[in-house]
């Protein structure tokens, strides 16, 4: 992916209202891989006794990151929507720490893009969550025969 398309991708992701509400930030993008991070915020807390972020906010990060990975796949995809997303929560994200997700679109067929993703807080030794998803594929007109 050229710098120009990476810049377009960055603008596209930062223009998504809900991603903006969660203060998501695109860290890296290209060739079917996206890295997006999100700060801890009091408004996102799901368990008031521990201050741990709600799983739903982590889902939103995983979903955005998965969609971005699909859209930057080399097979020039015009758009995508989530078909299904499964998230496994391995441990609680530490309150106050930034969460970073990395998603990889590892296979694309004519109609479906397959994605796996992981998310970490500042401790990179064990992910807080892992996800697998299937996304729709909408192609640019005239973009190959696949």
């Amino acid at each position: 992916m050229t710098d120009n398309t990476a810049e377009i991708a960055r603008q596209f992701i930062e223009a998504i209202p809900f991603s903006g509400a969660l203060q998501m930030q695109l860290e890296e993008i290209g060739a079917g891989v996206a890295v997006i991070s999100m700060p801890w915020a009091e408004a996102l807390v799901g368990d008031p006794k521990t201050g741990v972020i709600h799983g739903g906010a982590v889902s939103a990060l995983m979903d955005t990151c998965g969609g971005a990975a699909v859209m930057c796949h080399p097979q020039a995809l015009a758009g995508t929507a989530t078909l299904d997303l499964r998230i496994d929560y391995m441990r609680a994200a530490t309150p106050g720490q930034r969460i970073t997700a990395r998603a990889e679109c590892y296979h694309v067929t004519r109609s479906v893009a397959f994605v796996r993703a992981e998310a970490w807080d500042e401790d990179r030794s064990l992910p807080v969550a892992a996800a697998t998803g299937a996304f729709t594929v909408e192609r640019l007109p005239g973009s190959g025969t696949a």
Partner: protein
Amino acid sequence: MSPAAPEPVELIKQRRDRALAVLVEGVPYIRFLGVSFDRRGDELTAVLTYDPKLIGNPLIQALHGGVTASFLEVTAIMELSFNMLWDDVESGRVAADSLSPGSLPRLPKTIDFTVDYLRSGLPRDAYARARVNRQGRRYASVHVEAWQDNRQRLIAQATGHFLMPSRDG
């Protein structure tokens, strides 16, 4: 001896609504999303009030997939938590008047959650109900459905597994 007079319905409603309100108020993310709960007896319907910040695709004005996932997960956890608290409040183990976010039992923890996106979410209110398919002492399996204008046309459904808090302390 005559049987005890039934408890006034307003008192029962107050107690149940108070228990629900304390649960909901305690979770910042529920407020952030704009989710409220409509209670009929022990049945909860979650209501997601539309707000422009919930959009995920500005071109077609669709709800963000993460909003839908969050809404379903919030609904599942509230169903489990309210069931637990309902038992405590109705049996008199916990006095509704003394409930505060600080005195609540711990919330269930999500183990895994799988969302099946069926239709794109339109820029309007959405509703969800959860059904606990199995609940043991440690684990629970919950199914959730969300819809907008038409109950028969779901926008998404989800199944999740949850680790239940220990009831001892």
